């Protein structure tokens, strides 16, 4: 890592921790796990230098708990882990969602299920990142495809988290985590700072909204005002309120509305050669770069392919996907699992439209040739 005219060469994991510190993260709690460990290692080294704190917890249950605890106090906080650890965090993720506490969780994906293979990449957690914790809930999940994008999207994860008062997840993978690339470190970074309430010394109402998509400010614990919250369905004062069906419905709706009504602020995607495409490839993360190269290769063979790459995976940019689907003959996902993204495409596709998955689930990043032949095979008339 050397800072050269604003450029630095670093790994994906290093970009993640440096992006987080640039975003103002000053508390990290974690537990060692391959392939995410370097994020914790660098947090332990770098955070004290900027007055921040690193905490090695007894397990991943404790890691996310401590992160949310720190966020209550007004400190931007994060944790990073991989499959097994992310599974352990699911209950506390629900705490962050219903109590509306900003924080960032990084999942450096490895091959699963269970211990799977610790050292190799996969994309088996795409659906877990949406539905991993129980109960109906919203999810904001970002999936960068390069080291530079890991840096930028980590910053954006903190901004979205503070803006929407909710946990935000960032998905990387074992290869992106250890890939070294050049990153331009911006001189100025736009940061969204948490809205805190005016201190009026009375008990604060942290869940009071006039419109169901409004987000109340969040004063920090230890400040001028006092407030409480529970993971139980609560009233505007934050105390449990389970007796009213109307309140239950209102709270759950609020959690969704506060994000779904502001999709343009959350959604982010990139398109490559989609203008005249007849075959649409949908892909996220590192493997999308192979899919992008496959688009060029397919075009050189006379197949007008294009790439749709969500950078915000959840909420999925369904509107844009639908628009693109209307213009193409067939569409496929390109993903490193047994086919998770493809189900989203199928939801949006027309009944007669051919939709298929080009997948590889062997712990290696898909090669361009494999994607090209997978697409050609899928498009071939039956």
């Amino acid at each position: 890592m050397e800072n050269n005219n604003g450029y630095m060469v670093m790994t994906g994991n290093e970009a993640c921790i440096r992006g987080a510190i640039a975003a103002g993260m000053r508390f990290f709690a974690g537990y060692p796990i391959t392939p995410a460990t370097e994020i914790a290692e660098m947090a332990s080294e770098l955070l004290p230098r900027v007055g921040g704190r690193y905490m090695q917890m007894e397990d991943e249950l404790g890691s996310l708990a401590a992160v949310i605890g720190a966020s209550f106090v007004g400190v931007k906080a994060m944790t990073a882990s991989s499959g097994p650890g992310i599974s352990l965090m699911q209950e506390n993720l629900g705490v962050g969602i219903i109590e509306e506490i900003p924080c960032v969780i990084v999942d450096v994906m490895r091959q699963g299920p269970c211990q799977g293979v610790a050292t190799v990449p996969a994309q088996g957690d795409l659906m877990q990142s949406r539905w991993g914790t129980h109960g109906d809930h919203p999810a904001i999940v970002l999936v960068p495809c390069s080291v530079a994008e890991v840096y930028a999207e980590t910053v954006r994860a903190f901004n979205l988290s503070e803006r929407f008062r909710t946990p935000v997840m960032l998905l990387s993978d074992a290869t992106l985590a250890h890939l070294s690339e050049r990153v331009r470190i911006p001189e100025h970074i736009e940061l969204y700072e948490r809205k805190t309430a005016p201190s009026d010394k009375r008990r604060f109402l942290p869940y009071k909204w006039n419109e169901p998509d409004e987000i109340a400010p969040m004063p920090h614990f230890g400040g001028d005002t006092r407030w409480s919250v529970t993971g139980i369905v609560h009233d505007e004062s934050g105390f449990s309120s389970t007796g009213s069906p109307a309140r239950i419905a209102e709270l759950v709706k609020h959690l969704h509305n506060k994000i779904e009504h502001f999709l343009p602020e959350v959604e982010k995607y990139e398109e490559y050669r989609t203008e005249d495409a007849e075959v649409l490839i949908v892909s996220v993360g590192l493997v999308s770069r192979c899919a992008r190269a496959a688009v060029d290769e397919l075009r050189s063979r006379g197949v007008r392919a294009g790439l749709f790459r969500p950078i915000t995976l959840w909420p999925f940019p369904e509107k844009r996907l639908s628009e693109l689907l209307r213009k193409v003959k067939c569409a496929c996902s390109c993903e490193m699992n047994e086919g998770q993204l493809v189900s989203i495409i199928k939801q949006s596709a027309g009944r007669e439209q051919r939709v298929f998955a080009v997948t590889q689930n062997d712990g290696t990043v898909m090669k361009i040739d494999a994607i090209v032949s997978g697409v050609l095979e899928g498009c071939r008339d039956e």
Partner: protein
Amino acid sequence: MSEKHVFEKYLIENRLPTMLCPGCGNGIVYGALLRAIDRAGLDQNKIVISSGIGCSGRGYGYMDFCGMHTAHGRGLAFATGAKMADPSLHVIFLTGDGDCASIGGNHFIHACRRNIGITTIMMNNSNYGMTGGQYSPTTPEGVRTKTSVYGNMEPPFDICSLAVAAGATYVARAGTYYIKELTDYITAALMHDGFSLVEAMCDCPTLYGRLNGQGGAPAMMKLQKTNLVPMEKAKTMSEEELSGKHITGVYADRRDREEFTARYDRLIERAGGKL
């Protein structure tokens, strides 16, 4: 401050009455905690109550402090994050025997080991009350609960001895019948610089007491006079005589280990510099 003023200052009136059953010991512990907070002279705005799930965890909901009601067993890990993020806070963890000694056991021993400045008040009513009276890791052997109808087969934890062994620097046990000692110990725990535990022996007349024929709340309170033995007296008793009894008193009050966040502050000074 008079009793009335303590409760007026620290209780949220429109949240009362509590959801606790008549005769529950938890309310006595809440009262002792509020008196202790007053005696320790803590800044009300600097107090954070973290709590887990169960009857014990509901205490935060009646008190006018900052409070986080979290996930079952995890309150101490949430508390750890809050204390680390702002060491000037007085972080108090309200928990029960199931929440602390079972599902949260791992967080508990590691918080003891780190000696992080959090005061844990464990209300031990020897069963899972909120879910209807199942045996917990502190239920005595042979006792009847909803999941031990033939008598509990598991030996119980002595949570104070566990805390001492794990490195906690202030550890004490008292019963709700002994309100003066209980309040004194909680006051000392709040003023202690390091991890402190007060185990409050509580009665659950609705479930544990009823299932074991111990009578109502007053009868169970009286039973504490035989079941709880002060440390000095215990020294004169045989192992047989002490069987099934809990020894009360101060198990640890050490000043030889530095509190964790203070230690980390010195690390920050040492590391200070550029990225």
